[in-house]
Each structure stands twice: as structure tokens, then as C-alpha cells.
């Protein structure tokens, strides 16, 4: 089987399983908190509309009409959870393809299959790169909590991911002191620059809810990454085994 096919087969299977497991975990962890925060978000929107002077409401209505109908969104309940499951599965497959690419290069160079345990280590590296590092500057946020402009946060998030992965790579694969120092500096760099944030944040969402959300996101992500790392490596080792020729 070609390498690409082995990678895709392994990633689709691992991503599908991990996506479903994480969707279930999120139903207990993050989703109830998102739904509770949306109650505050909607209440704040209503209050804002009610307290606005009549003229402002007219202008607001006019603007709404100009925009036409609002964009589609899934209905609360089953439909919404179905799309969440789909997006989780796609995210799982996407990150599995990334991990599998590394597994394939590594096992191609060493001639040995990646064990599930080494896969787990790669998964934990993914957790550090994609959850811990960006989350330090941009903590997981609930709906209804205002934040800096989206694009600036997306750019900082991407920079944090790139710097952390490069830093970890230098530390793990170049076993020299200067490389290790450069690696640590690289990991610190995005945080020294600082993530974009608002000067004043006004929100009705209680800070205890926000704190619970940070914990829930971090734990569900840990489940996601450790499962994805070990399952993807096991599946890839299975599909990539040398065929008897």
C-alpha cells in the first residue's frame, strides 16, 4: 500500500473514533458551560436592545433589513450536536494526518514502526503545541465574553503554535545546549510579545464559569490528543507494515 494511502486510512479511522469519543466527553465537559454562557450572552443582547434610544433601534432595524436573513445555524439539540460531532471528526482526521506525516517520516528514516507509546508522546506534544501554548495567552473563551479582533487573535494563535512546535523540535531532535536554549527562547517568544487583548472587558458571564471552562477545555483536549496520538500511531503501523512480496 502506498504511504499516502496508509496515512489517509489510518487518519480517517483514528480521527473518526477520537472525534466520537471527544464529542461524548464535550457533552459532559465544555458544551453545558457554552450553553449556560449563551443564556448570559442573549440576556445581554436583549438588555442592550431595550436600553438603546428609539432612534438607535430604528437604525439597527434598518441595518438588519439591509443584511437580509441571518446566516444559517444548526437548531439547538440533536442537529447542533450532530454538527459538533462532524466538526470534531474532521478536526481529528486533520490533526491525525499531521501526526501520521511525522510518523511516516520517522519510521521511514529509522526503519522501525512507531509504537503506540511513542505515538502517545507525539500526541502530548500536540497537546502542548495546540492547547497549552496558545491557551496561555488566549485562554479558552466562552460565548458572550468580548475579546480582541478575531483576525489578530488568529494570527497570534498561529504564531504561538509555530514557535512552540519549532522550539520543541529543536529541544527534542538537536541534542545540543545552544539548540536547547534557542528552543526555550522560541517557546517563550510569543508570550513575551503578548497576545492581543482588550483594555476593558465587560461581561455578564461569571468568572467562575469562565474558569470552569478553561479546565474543561484543557481536560477534553488532553483526552483528544493522547487518544489521537496513540490510536493514529497504532493504525498507521498496521497499514504501513511491509507487505510480503
Amino acid at each position, binding site marked *: 500500500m*502506498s*504511504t*499516502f494511502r496508509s*496515512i*489517509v486510512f489510518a*487518519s480517517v479511522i483514528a480521527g473518526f473514533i477520537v472525534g466520537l469519543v471527544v464529542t461524548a466527553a*464535550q457533552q459532559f*465537559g*465544555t*458544551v453545558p458551560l*457554552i450553553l449556560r454562557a449563551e443564556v448570559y450572552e442573549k440576556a445581554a443582547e436583549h438588555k442592550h436592545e431595550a436600553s438603546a434610544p428609539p432612534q438607535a433601534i430604528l437604525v439597527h432595524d434598518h441595518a438588519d433589513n439591509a443584511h437580509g436573513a441571518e*446566516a*444559517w*445555524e*444548526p437548531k439547538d439539540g440533536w442537529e*447542533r450536536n450532530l*454538527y*459538533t460531532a*462532524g*466538526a*470534531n471528526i*474532521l*478536526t481529528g*482526521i*486533520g*490533526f*491525525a*494526518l*499531521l501526526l*501520521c*506525516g*511525522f510518523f*511516516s*517520516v520517522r519510521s*521511514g528514516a529509522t526503519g522501525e514502526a512507531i509504537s503506540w507509546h511513542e505515538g502517545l508522546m507525539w500526541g502530548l506534544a500536540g497537546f502542548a503545541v*495546540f*492547547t497549552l501554548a*496558545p*491557551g496561555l495567552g*488566549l*485562554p*479558552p*473563551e*466562552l*460565548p458572550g465574553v468580548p*475579546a480582541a479582533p*478575531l483576525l489578530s*487573535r*488568529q494570527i497570534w*494563535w498561529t504564531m504561538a503554535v509555530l514557535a512552540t512546535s519549532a522550539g520543541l523540535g529543536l529541544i527534542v531532535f538537536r541534542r545540543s545546549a545552544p539548540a536547547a536554549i534557542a528552543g526555550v527562547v522560541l517557546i517563550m517568544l510569543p508570550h513575551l510579545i503578548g497576545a492581543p487583548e482588550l483594555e476593558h472587558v465587560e461581561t455578564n458571564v461569571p468568572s467562575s464559569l469562565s474558569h470552569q471552562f478553561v479546565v474543561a*477545555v484543557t481536560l*477534553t*483536549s488532553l483526552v*483528544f490528543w493522547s487518544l489521537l496520538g496513540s490510536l493514529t500511531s497504532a493504525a498507521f503501523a498496521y497499514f504501513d507494515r511491509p507487505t510480503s512480496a
Partner: protein
Amino acid sequence: MSQSQTAQAQHLPVATRHVGRLAQSLIAMTLGLFIVGVVGFSHIDVIHNAAHDVRHSNAFPCH
């Protein structure tokens, strides 16, 4: 296949297989990043609304 081509193919396989593996791995990784990018970062409203809870749950920047 001519005789000289056959001889060449027998001499090259280790190097070409290695390069082929690297290229295929890179294509798979690019595809993976593209999928994550669309699900987690696309500004298109419909994609945002469908993946809304996943974006929040993965701490991707949202709203």
C-alpha cells in the same frame, strides 16, 4: 521497458522510495492542516455556526 531502464530501476529504488515517502507525508500533512484550518479558522458564517461549539471547545479563536 528497455533493458537499461530495468537496470536503472533496480539501482534506484531505495533513494526514490525514501523521497516518495517524504513527499507523500508532506502532502498528507498539508491536507490535514487545510482541514483543521477550514473547521477552526474559516470566517465564512455557515462554517462558523456549524463548528461553533468545537471552536470554543478547542480554544480556537472564535467570534
